[in-house]
């Protein structure tokens, strides 16, 4: 089954593109069928419920409707990238 991941940042364009691209590359390598949708942080509460995971590039304090949440900042800075990707993989496969 295809997994749907919501990737959010301030404007749904800049940092979310970087993070979404890295996620797609990683999951393709891991053999997990997934697609990403980019959005703005302020639009997360209205959208997130129908996704399998939420990744945001910055701080996020809103409601996730029980969807697993992974902090995406490590994918931008390169510090802790592997741990974050592992966390995402675990969230999708469990």
């Amino acid at each position: 089954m295809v997994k749907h991941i919501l990737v959010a940042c301030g404007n749904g364009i800049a940092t979310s593109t970087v993070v979404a691209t890295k996620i797609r590359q990683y999951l393709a390598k891991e053999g997990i069928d997934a697609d990403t949708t980019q959005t703005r942080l302020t639009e997360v509460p209205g959208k997130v419920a129908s996704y399998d995971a939420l990744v945001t590039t910055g701080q996020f304090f809103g409601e996730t409707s029980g969807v697993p949440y992974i902090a995406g900042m490590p994918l931008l800075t390169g510090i802790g990238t592997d741990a974050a990707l592992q966390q995402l993989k675990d969230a999708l496969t469990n």
Partner: protein
Amino acid sequence: MWTEIANGFMAGFQFIINCGPTVMLPIIITIVGLIFGLKLTQSFKSGLTLGIGFAGIKLVLDFMTTNVGPAAKAMVERTGVRLDALDVGWGSIAAITWASPIIAFLIFAILAVNIVLLILKATHTLDVDIWNYHHMAIVGIMVYFVTHNVFLGVGSAIVMAILTFKMSDWSQPMVEKFFGIPGVSLPTVSALSSLVIAVPVNWLLDKIPFFKNSKFSVKDAQKYLGFFGDSMIMGLLIGIVIGILAGYDLQQVLGLGVSMSAVLVLIPRMTAMFMEGLMPISESAQKWSESKFKGRKLFIGLDAAVVVGNPDVITTALIIIPITIAMAVVLPGNRVLPFADLAVVPFRVAMVVALTNGNLLKNLIIGVVVTASLLWCGSATSPVLTAIAKSVGIKLSTGGSLLISSFAATSMIQSYIVYFAFTWKPVIGIPVLLIALAGIWYFFDHVKRINKAAEAAEAAMAEGK
């Protein structure tokens, strides 16, 4: 022989420019990619992605002006509200920036400024996010467009770059403390620029205990004002209101509403193509610079997008958005019709929120002043921006009376000041600007020692070797 080669080169360059941005962008970006060490296929795909993004932006802008242009005109005629500079959003402006014939020079100039400042230990910020250079580059492009002088154009982009890297240094301790992100600074002009106004206004407000100690707060802003943060709904509502004010019938009103909603959702999709195309180049630049500056303790420059999710930032922005629309109507001299950039108001207030430590009352007051500056500077420079857009082949199909504007480019006070200094009597403007910059630099780096923690960390690292 050399003159022949030079002539041939110039003819080739002119040929490429004459092809228009959709052809020029792939060629220029392919070359830039190769210089950054990408493989030919990868670089070409990057270039082509940017070309596609530009074609997309052109389509959406054409659609937008065809729909909203006549409505805005009718609204002005019926109500007398003279808002004829349509806010097409920072994404459109970024696209126009990347489509400029001198963009390659500006990108390398800005990158060179960062590297030179790092080597001189004059900045702590490593900013190789090539994408975000568009905020600095647009000033160079506008100055070049007005003065026809490449040196002034590149010079103004260099001054923008120095200002941006220094301001991200100076704001780093505040960003780390308030947003809790260590080792990161935010060289994003769209967020930093507000500090030019926020710092003095905040200083003034702190003289008055009522403002300084205000505990004013708004509960559930997200619950009741959340729709201001949703592009689809915002576009629909603004379209409907403009349609009603234009005296349209119900069918036309609804049509305009959906069209405007479509524009607000589609512009970011197109802009994301630019980001996608530039990513491999940014990554390659990042790898290169990280290997060069190993052993230095530097702040990684990130897009301010990483902090705008903060609840205080969102609350402030959601209140400022409707105020912005109201101000556009009542502010004397304003011509900007706020639209696409209402979506990025959180960027304009993010630094303000960190500066006041989340004091909502001060945030709103400063936010209003910042908004006034955006509207005024945006109105003042919209004719130049419109002329540049036309020069890169964006059709504004409304009989030529409609202007375009945004809350980016020279609508932002930092960019406006630099643009103004370089175009209005540069002989006086540039020296005054540079002296002011030097004075502020001396104050923050040597009097206030605002980055002393970072300096100490770096000195300790150098000693440890």
